[in-house]
């Protein structure tokens, strides 16, 4: 489950993950909740991935992987985490300690985005990092997912977002090398 505020690209990033999973031969179900707010309001996306048919209802009661891009509206995600979960936190924005039993992995995604691409790509950087650190999705699938997810009127930003995924991927490998990911969790 990914949360943030409207404008950070939460819905687009969830689309990239979902479409990448399909490219990797999995089934996916994605439910985005965002009301009428394009900028600044609550936004979250629930994504279910499976090797077989998906029987889950669209609203999740718990999740094993969280992406927290902003401290506002974070409680909806925290309620769904438990001690077996891992949550990736954008420490450029979420600066307070998170109260959770889940394993917390911090990444300054916005700062990294500013250094390597541009600030609006922060969530795409995070997606690249999450995919690499967890071995959840292959880089090829991610790029194919990105190409499918970008609407026609945003095609000119394909290169920029691809660069963001790549920057995130490097950071994700670094996190994995530093044993930030619990070993029991990556084998799920």
């Amino acid at each position, binding site marked *: 489950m990914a949360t943030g505020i409207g404008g950070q690209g939460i819905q687009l990033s969830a689309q990239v993950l979902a479409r990448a999973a399909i490219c990797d031969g999995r089934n996916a179900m*994605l439910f985005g909740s965002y009301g009428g707010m394009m900028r600044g309001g609550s936004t979250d996306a629930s994504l279910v991935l499976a090797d077989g048919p998906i029987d889950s209802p*669209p609203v999740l*009661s718990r999740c094993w992987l969280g992406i927290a891009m902003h401290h506002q509206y974070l409680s909806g995600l925290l309620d769904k985490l438990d001690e077996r979960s891992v949550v990736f936190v954008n420490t450029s924005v979420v600066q307070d300690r998170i109260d959770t039993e889940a394993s917390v992995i911090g990444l300054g995604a916005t700062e990294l985005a500013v250094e390597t691409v541009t600030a609006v790509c922060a969530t795409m950087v995070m997606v690249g990092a999450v995919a690499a650190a967890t071995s959840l999705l292959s880089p090829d699938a991610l790029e194919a997912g990105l190409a499918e997810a970008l609407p026609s009127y945003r095609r000119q930003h394909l290169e920029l977002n691809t660069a963001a995924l790549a920057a995130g991927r490097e950071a994700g490998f670094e996190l994995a090398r530093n044993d930030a990911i619990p070993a029991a969790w990556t084998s799920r």
Partner: protein
Amino acid sequence: MTETAVGTATGTPRLMEGSEAIAEAMVVAGCRFFAGYPMTPFTEILESMAEKLPPLGGVCMNAESELEAIGMAWGAAATGTRTATGSTGQGLALMQESLAELTLARIPMLVINMARSQADYFQATRGGHGDSRRIVLAPMDVSEAVELTQLGFHLADLYRNPVMVYGDYYIAHTYESVVVERRDFGPLPAKDWALDGSSGGTGAAKLLSPLGDYKQRDDVGYDLADYYARVEVELTAMETDFAPMAETGFVEDAEVVVVAFGTPGKFVRYCVTELRAEGAKVGFVRPISLYPFPTEVLREAVRTARAVAVYENSAGQMIDDVRLALLGTVPVEFIGGLTMDSSAFGVGPDLQVPIIKQRIVDACRSAGYELGEGF
């Protein structure tokens, strides 16, 4: 364990938003005219039809309001073209007069009701004036919506009557891996009633009107009683012929049976499956056709039950049909309620597996079924 009345399609799945999947299902079913007015969560279906129909030679109209939308659909459907319209609760309410009239005129079409919550059950199953009736189908997810949308067109043409699909915000906005393939539901009667211009100049003009389908002469006048009686016979024949659809699970020895339709039906199915795995003798019935209601399926499903619990994301509307079906033979308890988040688009905070599970457990206890420890 469970058996759906609708088959599962095979082929290569694509990730599609429910709205687009429904639009695609309409197009592969041969729909070539669509009219509507934007309103969440119906809007994306209209947008998708506007994209898909013109390249196929079809027409999609963004009407001035829902009143005009159904009027346009009425005219298009009268030509024999596969036609659909739709809206959400308020817009559907505006359409009810025309929907009833075109039923009496015996015009087939599909009406997509993307409701905000389940509180449009009454207007879906009972809406409109006069003795008009229509089949209402309620999918639980995107895949089933794709199937029921196509079946809806078939039933509409089979019975020469409007058919409604009852969706919601969840189905509209959930992306799923889904396969959309044209389904063949069998042969259909010829549309020899259609105003397609084929009888022009022959003297055999056709009339499609809620006021009668034969030419009137001044010295005879309208015999509406005769016409309405004939429509009544046709609608009753439709109700008799159509086998109500429902999915059941774990009902053979169930102490408590939970009834829910649409998206909440999928939640309830999930909760009941979990509770069974934990040792609770609970079952579920998920009505797929809301009208005609699966009365016989429900009666059969509650044979061993000491109570029936109904979950709806509304103040309770389908529960009336459940009570009518069971005629007081089994106590019926309501465990739902209308809950919405601030968008008021029908996203209910109560639609959570743990919450619904707990209500089912509570219903078991209040029915005197002791679940033991761990619940």
